[in-house]
């Protein structure tokens, strides 16, 4: 059973707004970069970077970050997470990083991502952009830029589908069956 929360147009508008917010809050894009968290944040980070680039007429560095090695739930997961690419082709020291993820839920993925970034270098600041904030935080983590706030119950799951993965752009809300796995999203 699933319900569409955002369609292609909604997504497009949200990303455009977030791009403007990022530029506004940082007073431009100097010393700024975007890093998408594998897997859900990678395409979003690229799209945001493209939009920001066309607004400011200047490219902004984009990277991707895999957090498998920094997860806090390795012992209890039913299956081991697949290791994906960390590709940050620039120095992060003294840079402002906007972490990008698709859904903010418990906040644990973000904590893992921050630990990973700290091991890679010493950023000047870290901000957080998420397409969906579905609540139920377990750590004191807050997003700076949110596409849409969606209150959910724990028996539901939020899925972001994107063209880059071969599906139409949309965000859907699904009711999980009893066997679903609760994982940081």
């Amino acid at each position, binding site marked *: 059973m699933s319900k569409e929360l955002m369609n292609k147009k909604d997504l497009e508008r949200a990303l455009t707004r977030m791009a403007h917010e990022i530029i506004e809050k940082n007073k431009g894009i100097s010393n700024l970069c975007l890093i998408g968290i594998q897997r859900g944040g990678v395409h979003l980070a690229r799209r945001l970077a493209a939009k920001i680039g066309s607004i400011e007429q200047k490219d902004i560095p984009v990277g991707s970050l895999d957090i498998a090695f920094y997860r806090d739930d390795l012992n209890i997961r039913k299956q081991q997470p697949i*290791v994906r*690419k960390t590709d940050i082709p620039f120095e992060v020291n003294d840079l402002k990083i906007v972490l990008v993820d698709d859904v903010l839920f418990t906040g644990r993925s973000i904590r893992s991502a921050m630990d990973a970034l700290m*091991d890679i270098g010493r950023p000047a600041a870290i901000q957080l952009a998420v397409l969906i904030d579905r609540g139920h935080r377990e750590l004191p983590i807050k997003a700076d830029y949110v596409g849409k706030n969606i209150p959910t119950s724990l028996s539901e799951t939020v899925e972001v589908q994107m063209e880059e993965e071969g599906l139409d752009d949309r965000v859907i809300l699904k009711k999980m069956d009893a066997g679903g796995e609760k994982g940081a999203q």
Partner: protein
Amino acid sequence: MRGERKVLSSKDLLGIKELSREEITLVLDTAAGFKDILGRDIKKVPTLRGKTTVNLFFEPSTRTRTSFELAAKRLSTDVINFSVPTSSVVKGESLVDTALTVQALGADFIVIRHASSGVPHLLARHLHASVINAGDGTNEHPTQALLDAFTIREKKGRIAGLTVAIVGDIMHSRVAKSNIYCLKTLGADVRLIGPPTLIPRNLRETGVAIFHNMEDGLKGADVLIMLRIQMERQGKGFFPSTEEYAKNWGLTPERLSRAKEDVIVMHPGPMNRGIEIVSEIADGPKSVILEQVTNGIAVRMSVMYLLSGVKR
């Protein structure tokens, strides 16, 4: 996160023979992620924090043991080195008892090297810790083959369809055997080059080509894996002298030119410079010997990471 089910099927790494093509590929893919980490300032991840690795080496080996030790430490496990002369094995304790004692001390990973084939298999049967074979008798040395495959794949982009020549003392080399299984499983064409006394005839039944003339064997090769000639073999009639060996099967620039232009030269180490390989090549542009060492740590981290995810 949507999980794709990709796991190893056994809690132990006993040999390449026991791995499927998918499992080998999984180890190599995961190793790529770990290699990134080794390029950073902070060469460490907290992934296996709190776990304990015990190196149980019954045969001396500085380089393999150090590589495993570093891999374990980079994953944040605690590492204990247990080498035979200092242990109670000399006092007559049985192998299985030693391993059970080590497990009772809290070992999650036991890396074992032993002169007798089949010892890792014996221990794996009795332990719930993960047993990693670091070399058993003349059976296998699986992590060496995996790091060799990783190196080849990184340099050449693939393994299937490549011509790989393994040169030297095949008969006594567990490295050669693991490499033969691994490369064949991944679809490479494997050639063995060396004197007849050091290449068992039965190997022809496994589909590898055997050459005793090095020039012929090297023609068109994409990858060369040079094996160390063990000096202890010299007195036993396998070849008359190291000089004669070097003359016939030593890798020289002239012989190397028979291979493809973009051939890569590998060696598991330690090298006998001037015997199986000349310094000019070992230190030259086609050599990837030092990268093998770095890749070894990444591959061993990958193995430990994946084994830790196997449910008992």
